[in-house]
């Protein structure tokens, strides 16, 4: 379950994509935070995470499947946290809007 279902992502949120891509971690404007809260406030089942493969060097994108259940790994490897944030953002954006971001 999740409580973060109220905000419906719309075209007006598109302007935050590049803002997030440039600075995925840090102080964000309130509207971008609202968008991120919606994307990050997913239920545990299907939630995207980064799994550390080589500490501080390489991460793998995966999905939680629920309490006690094995992770579902995606064939996406990243070499920085910022890159990982962007890959997860793209997956979530697609999940919510159907749009594929490059």
């Amino acid at each position, binding site marked *: 379950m999740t409580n973060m279902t109220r905000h419906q992502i719309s075209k007006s949120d598109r302007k935050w994509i590049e803002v997030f891509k440039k600075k995925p*971690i840090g102080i964000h404007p309130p509207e971008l935070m609202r968008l991120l809260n919606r994307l990050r406030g997913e239920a545990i089942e299907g939630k995207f995470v980064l799994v550390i493969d080589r500490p501080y060097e390489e991460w793998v994108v995966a999905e939680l499947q629920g*309490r006690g259940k094995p*992770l579902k790994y995606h064939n996406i490897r990243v070499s920085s946290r910022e890159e990982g944030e962007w890959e997860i953002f793209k997956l979530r954006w697609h999940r919510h809007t159907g749009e594929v971001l490059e």
Partner: protein
Amino acid sequence: MLKITGYSDQISVVLGDKISFMVNCEHPSYEADIVRVICGDVNPDGPGFNEDVIDSPVSGTYNGRKQEIYAGSFAMVESSALLENLESFTVQVMVWPTTPRKGVQSLVAKWSVPDNSGFALEIDESGGIAFLVGDGKGKVDTVSIGKPMVEYEWYFAAASYNADNKEVTVYQEPMVEYPPIDDASTVTKKVSVAPAANAVPLMMAARCKAPKGDVVIGDAYYNGKLDSPAIVEGVLSRAEMEMILNRKAPTTLENRIIGAWDFSLDITETTITDTSSHRLHGKICHMPTRGVTGYNWTGEELRWKHAREEYGAIRFHEDDVYDAGWDVDFELTIPDSMKSGIYAARVTSGEDEEYIPFVVRPKPGREKKVCFLFPSASYMAYANEHFGTDPWPAELMTHRAIELDKHHVFLNEHREYGHSLYDRHSDGSGIHISSRLRPILNMRPKVQTVLGGEGSQLWQFAADTHITVWLEAMGYDYDVITDEDIHYRGTDVLKPYNVVLTSSHNEYYSKAMYDAVFDYIHQGGRLIYMGGNGFYWRVSYHQTAPGVIEIRRAEGGSRAWAPKSGEYYTGFTCEYSGLWRRQGRTGPNVMAGVGFSSEGFDISSYYRRNPDSFNSRVAFIFEGVGKDELIGDFGLIGGGAAGLELDRVEREFGTPPHALCLASSENHTDTFLVVVEDILFNLPGSGGQENEWVRGDLCFFETPNGGAVFSASSMAWAGSLPHNDFQNNVSRITKNVLDRFVDPKPFPIKKAPAPPMKDSYTWRVKGSTPTAGAAE
């Protein structure tokens, strides 16, 4: 997935003590060594991983073997002739199931799983009460109510067996009636077999799968409460059952009781008491929760000692774990050559490795002047946390992607390793009890954590080695003692030291620990509070079972769960648990001058000097630090010295009136929010970009008899110490304080009128009343 895990029987040892290590290794063999842990951070931007291999008899190659944890709590009574030779009998118990539909859950059973012999009162697949009989030769018969019970409701459950005609009657009666819900019934049926005698224990909340030495392996674990179980000779009427339940049986009936267990009689113990003349006492296993409300709780009393008879329930969980009970793989007798410090048994096989940390405390009489307080209680509180895999809002707190290290992935699938005091049981209830007699996979060097902040992303054990590596780099000779040493030995273990340093997050304190540290700093001791959100929760240590603590997160505070009404007092000691600041003249502000104010887990910030930092009383602290210099705008934990969890001065909560608010952090992200205990109504603008209370305050004050306190008030402070090869203003300030605190020269005190009450904003902006405090 991890293939090596382990734990030790002790967390603190001294010269001559023997410590045992238990190892689970899926490889054919492994190498073991003893190492002294100096820095556990492997971040390439950090000071570098640092350990010293100790020459010890442990070094060598060992055979690997798989050792497993059999989680799940239960109560048991050893088998006896009385229990083995039952003819006609009745078994009854009050039941409060939390997961009635999860499958078979045994309630009261003398049932041997391998040969299906005996009897079992249980919840069956229907979610209702059933009675099982087995002849041990392959025949099993069941009488089932077949109606699911409602979760979190009390039921009377019973079954009688008539040996003359093999007739079984099963009862299921809810205490609360919901008119349309069909959950009450009595079913009578003849069975085809008689329950065969067996030698397995009588078990409550599980049934016996196999004995394993002193550890009984169970099966069909139950989630929920049981109250007033009893076994009585003969087939009882419903009225007679009620007399047994109410402990008002006439003598003729009372004489037929084989066992009637009153769980309220030994709440603080690991025993259960049979009140019948047979005295078939038993014990609990894997530490279920006691001191919980029973079926007859009226709500008039909140403290179980005041209404013991209303607290006759025990709450069991299928994932409770106390002692893993593994066999010992190697031992170490502490030699004279091992100075006080943080050590670990390092176990490696190929690329797999495991560290099992422990502390060598100094031999009395050989103490140094500086001591690091190893926060073993707080490590236990966070032991095997599941922040990244269980609670959905975790990423809202971190405001960045959840990162899972290897141990997180392992713990998600290996729930038998138990949980932290932040997690929830499989039935959704909060974890009240945490033990160190199991592998604690996040109390390790090298491991990263979900909450640790951008950068090294460390929390607790590994983060605290930023302090020990700094002490070594600065050339300080120091001892290490643990929370358990303080809890069991009191102020005497602190008194030899001129100064003690806390860890980055000494959050959990027992009363004995709180009193010991408080008395120390009021008897001339000096405290450097190196962290954030310390001295926050009150916990109880069990009084007879080693290595286990309990908390009830009562009625306030930033908490992962809330206890049920009437369950605010720990079962271990009947102490009112929860926040220290709610308990009289106690709490972090009283102890350290600052208390938990806000938290956030993305990026950290810096401190800016306040007017109080120019008071001559603290000139020694800022030697070499510029007037307008930002303090700690760098670091391995979130990139700044002010981050994760932050504390502020607040007279209302006990900050001494003469304390100086030296510097305050600012410019935190909006994921740093004011703590809930400071909020009466929710308001917009509680984040770091707007709210005054989202900050950490450097704080100093003198204590009686020449003592003093300096507080960093941030969990990220220690992460800035190693920056620029330890040459930075966080390191300088900490060194200035430590050098002065080591010096036994008293702080000069000049009496002055009490300053007027001020709020924390005024304190920060205008400073303390200049006349209050020390001589100029």
